[in-house]
């Protein structure tokens, strides 16, 4: 009878586990409370079936266990009972499905006044774009992507010129206003996933996908990629800062437009973002700027600074080290070597690592800052 006891223990254990579990939904930070409600409805109805059926089995096992001389009943079917069970199951299914579809009807109807945010996913970082004063986003296409045009905006489209570009992994959003997120990729599949918002969608190169939500909690939320996009997938980190509308407007106003980014100078401050822009060009400031760059350019997706294995060589102790290259030759990693690696990553490879490092757009100033940061990870 151990199996009957096991079934009962599993049922009770599962319910207790659920009640005591510290692992459950992250606190909701968007309008999609309905999604949490449908989850709860589903949990209650399915949980009821799980408990009842398993306890019924346990009871049957005890009651009808084999005893000498016992013989099974010969009733092979009961139309009536089967019809009842079909009916009950159908009712259960309708109770599950109906609220789900009602919520989904909301999900496919973004409010017309929603703020439009474009999220650009690329291996392995996030960029963001808002429409400028014109209120409409300019055209973009993979053909236009270049070192100084990561979004692939069409330079001939006047609408593109006032688009606000955020070439970093952090975006700000105003509290309480619906946001329609347009999703775009110029390389592979991604998925912009912020667990507390619930809403999300895959990003598919060659098309624009979308979803909408209204941020209802201020705070800084982690965004992650939830569609396998290669070896750096698990480190494709982004942040969404939800703040008061005034603060958002102030932040947005400090960002760079496409036209400004294409203007000859100064490029460095624009790409690094407001945080590093005001820094004095001292050594520590350079390292700090490099750290910000390592985050915003997505370097940290593959290169650790604590010596843990990553997709690429760890930066801990990298500077000054002698590395063996794929062709068997060796090279001392100094400033020149690092710059060559970053500018032309496919030209030569460190032995044992895959040839997957993208050539990123970077000014000379940015490169110097990044190298200073890598250098700072070497033992003194």
């Amino acid at each position, binding site marked *: 009878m151990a199996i009957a006891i096991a079934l009962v223990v599993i049922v009770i254990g599962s319910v207790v586990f659920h009640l005591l579990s510290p692992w459950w939904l992250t606190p909701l930070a968007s309008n999609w409370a309905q999604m949490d409600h449908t989850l709860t409805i589903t949990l209650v109805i399915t949980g009821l079936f799980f408990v009842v059926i398993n306890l019924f089995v346990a009871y049957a096992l005890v009651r009808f266990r084999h005893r000498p001389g016992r013989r099974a009943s010969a009733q092979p079917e009961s*139309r009536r009972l089967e019809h009842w069970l079909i009916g009950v199951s159908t009712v259960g299914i309708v109770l599950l499905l109906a609220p789900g579809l009602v919520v989904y009807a909301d999900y496919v109807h973004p409010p017309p006044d929603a703020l439009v945010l474009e999220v650009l996913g690329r291996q392995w970082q996030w960029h963001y774009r808002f429409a400028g004063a014109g209120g409409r986003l300019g055209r973009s296409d993979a053909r236009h992507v270049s070192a100084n045009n990561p979004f692939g905006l069409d330079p001939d489209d006047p609408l593109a010129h006032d688009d606000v570009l955020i070439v970093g992994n952090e975006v700000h959003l105003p509290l309480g206003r619906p946001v329609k997120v347009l999703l775009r990729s110029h390389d592979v599949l991604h998925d912009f996933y912020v667990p507390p918002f619930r809403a999300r969608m895959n990003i*598919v190169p060659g098309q624009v996908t979308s979803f909408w939500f209204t941020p209802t909690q201020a705070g800084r939320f982690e965004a992650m990629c939830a569609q396998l996009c290669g070896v750096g997938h698990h480190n494709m980190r982004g942040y969404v800062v939800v703040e008061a509308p005034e603060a958002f407007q102030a932040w947005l106003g400090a960002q760079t437009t496409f036209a400004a980014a294409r203007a000859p100078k100064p490029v460095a401050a624009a790409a690094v973002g407001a945080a590093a822009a005001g820094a004095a060009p001292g050594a520590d400031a350079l390292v700090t700027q490099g750290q910000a760059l390592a985050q915003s350019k997505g370097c940290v997706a593959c290169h650790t600074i604590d010596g843990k294995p990553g997709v690429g060589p760890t930066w801990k102790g990298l500077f000054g080290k002698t590395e063996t290259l794929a062709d068997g030759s060796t090279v001392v990693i100094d400033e020149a070597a690092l710059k060559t690696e970053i500018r032309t990553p496919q030209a030569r490879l460190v032995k044992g690592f895959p040839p997957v490092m993208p050539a990123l757009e970077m000014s000379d100033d940015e490169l110097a800052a990044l190298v200073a940061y890598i250098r700072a990870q070497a033992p003194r």
Partner: protein
Amino acid sequence: MAYDDDAPHHAPQTFLTKYVWCQDHKVIAIQYASTAITVGIVGVVLSNLMRLQLGFPGYFEFINPERYYQFVTMHGMIMVIYLLTALFLGGFGNYLIPLMVGARDMVFPYLNMLSFWVYLLSVIVLMASFFAPGGPTGAGWTLYPPQAILPGTPGHDWGIILMLVSLLIFIVATTMGGLNYVTTVLQARTKGMTLLRMPLSVWGIFVATILALLAFPALFVSGVMMLLDKTLGTSFFMPALLSMGQATGYKGGSPLLFQHLFWFFGHPEVYIVALPAFGIVSDLISVHARKSIFGYRTMVWAIVVIGALSFVVWAHHMFVSGMNPWFGFFFATSTLIIAVPTAIKVYNWVLTLWRGDIHLSVPMLFTLAFLLTFLSGGLTGLFLGNVSVDIPLSGTYFVVAHFHMVMGVAPLLVVFGAIYHWFPKVSGRMLDDRLGRLHFWVTFLGTYAIYFPMHYLGVLGMPRRYYNFDDYAFIPPSAHALNTFITVAALIVGAAQLVFVFNLVWSTFRGARASANPWRAASLEWFTPETPPVHNNWGAQLPVVHRWAYAYGVPGAPEDFVAQNAPPEAGGMEPEAHAGAGKPQEAPA
């Protein structure tokens, strides 16, 4: 009809024709099963390596991100295709169909032999990718383009090519086998074996084979198209895009096209694995509860309806894929409709226990474990099938836990139960009971301990296919501790499978001799003149069937079961087709 052909074929004479180039369905079944189990062990080892990284991130330096994604991918593909599909259709299908319908062999024995050797070739090609430059593909078992064939994904050169070629070869093997199984069921049933007297095992395998014949072509064409995209630079699935920051020559293709083709295969594939398990478990529960399966005809119809519906639910795998969101309404509805016939099957299994005479043999224990595991996995399917519940859960560990419960562990529990059940017929010896119970308890409780808590990590929002979860603030330390616990459970369950393999090998040579029908089952395969059955199965005369396979507890009969081929006077007929109440005929006093 084949039952006119009572003359036995010539039995093979040499070792080579008897065990290697063999056309006997039983030998081919064993070849299929041994190959599948061997490759399955590789799959289990890969899963344990994966779990080592998740449970103890950073401790094992040789598991770098590339290898991790390669383990994930190969584990998934091996378990779904090369283990479960091959084992249920090629293994159980081959062994059981001719014996259960009273045929001397499959109708195309040569094709059947070819099917196995082509399958073996597909396995060799797959395993070769471990040794190819760059290693096997790490694109995830769904092989989604564009990343599957682009740098940034491990094995994007040789690995993905070998994977696709291996799949194409596998599909050729499955098609050869599948045509055989379907034709044998339709054409080679012995006298009296009407379709509605066939054991549910045969029904499950039969319908699953039809699904395979209809679904695998979708995978075949998508495999060919992706190979062309990879090798010739076509753009079936490849839009204009950049790779590692550089422009490529691709233009105009659609990644979503691949996803539709993949899941048009992929969802029926779930039932290609599940329907044979449904069928087999129905037989196990009936034999070991000594009671006719409850609602046999409803069970048959449920299998057929589930099979048909499985072709119109595929896009529930794509609710957040970026397809037209309006599809969500249709596919959520069709998906939840399929839950009704599936629920009916669960009720009927449970009701078969009611007023039974339940023997808790090892096959029965695995059957009961299947019931709980399948119920759990099926119910979580109602979360993921309901589009707005799926949106936050999609791509998280909730999905991983769900599909492992419903189409990983549940069918494997049936595989184990079935092997303990039919091993005496296959080998003439019993599997060791104590080792069997040890294997059962560790596997059943262990897998539940792995996958039940895993759902909660998914609800928390932890995405699947993550090499590690370092420095994500929303993930509490306790979630990492839970991952460590799951890894320990997975290692224990993995080790327990060695007990099973040992039991198989040991009992084959040293197991207690089995009688011809140790479980006192009523279905035809237990009434071969010899155990194990020899070539041609039935001696000079084919058996004649007089009743269904579920004549248990027949009132007035001398024993508590009546064999399918016992004379009509023994009673125990199937319920009359139009009798309404379905009263069983009693044996004459």
